């Protein structure tokens, strides 16, 4: 009985997690999930807000108050090379999945692009693609982020040099 209950719960968790992630994110995850030094996790917005609250990140916490789910994956650049794929290729996947670029910031070698896939009832999907020297980080948020916060934070570098 315990085994059946565990199986049901596990299936529900996996199904829910898959539903909260976009086709683009799942494509990346499926491609690299068994790779060396690839890390990924998915958590509820509530859990993320609790962590941010504990860390004293109140402004960021406020901005994601309507976020229902957060997923993250980090992939070494070497894994892209060994799989014969590129970050530009992933950007194409994003465009095909109806993600549109909101803002791009290149600073000291890091390249950060934020995308949005607007949906009904503030159930947007946001992808933050961070391209560093040796690693690619992709964060997906599901829900709603205050545009004011997005606009203000793209230029923090310039506001506070």
């Amino acid at each position: 009985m315990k085994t059946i209950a565990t199986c049901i719960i596990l299936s529900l968790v996996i199904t829910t997690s898959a539903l909260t992630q976009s086709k683009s994110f799942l494509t990346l995850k499926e491609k690299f999930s068994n790779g060396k030094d690839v890390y990924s996790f998915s958590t509820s917005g509530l859990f993320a807000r609790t962590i941010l609250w504990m860390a004293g990140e109140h402004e960021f916490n406020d901005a994601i108050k309507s976020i229902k789910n957060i997923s993250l994956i980090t992939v070494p650049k070497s894994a892209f090379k060994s799989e014969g794929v590129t970050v530009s290729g992933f950007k194409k996947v994003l465009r095909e999945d109806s993600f549109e670029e909101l803002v791009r910031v290149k600073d000291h070698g890091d390249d950060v692009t934020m995308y949005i896939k607007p949906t009904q009832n503030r159930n947007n999907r946001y992808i933050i693609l961070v391209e560093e020297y040796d690693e690619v980080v992709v964060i997906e948020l599901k829900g709603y982020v205050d545009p004011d916060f997005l606009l203000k934070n793209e230029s923090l570098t310039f506001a506070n040099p």
Partner: protein
Amino acid sequence: MKKIIAVAGLMMVMSGVFAQDAISKFFGKYQNDESFSQVTVSSKMFGLFTNMEAETAEDKEVLDAISKLKGLRILAKDDARNARELYKEAFTLIPMKEYEELMSVRDKDKDMKFLIKENGGKISELLMIMGGNEEFMVLSLFGEIDLKQVSRIGKKMDVKGLENLDKMDKKN
């Protein structure tokens, strides 16, 4: 025949280059230079403000102005010993005939110039060029620009420099 195709191809590429906006020439030159910071904001981002509710009439005006913008590009360099040279270089790359000078600010630390491009009586681009002792920045804001709202937009986005346009309001 091959030569004709090659020349035609070259002409198409060249016409593309000339069609670029002023800041594109800078981006093109320094896009792979990691000492520069670049920000590109798309029209999609500004479009997110279209249906936002405003608490005050003043906020409504700012939101309306933001939603008419089509893009923002910034190219900046901090700790730049050659900031003054970059400032001068900017004016050699920008087709000044296309712009009208709106305002200049000079203080002991930096020089700033605000230029505008008009199309059919409407301002379609605002260019801000700033060269200081150790910092340099080119900012291009394009779309349908309401100059009265630009300094407020700058405050909303925390982009330094645009608050100088307040001085122009006070002078008028």
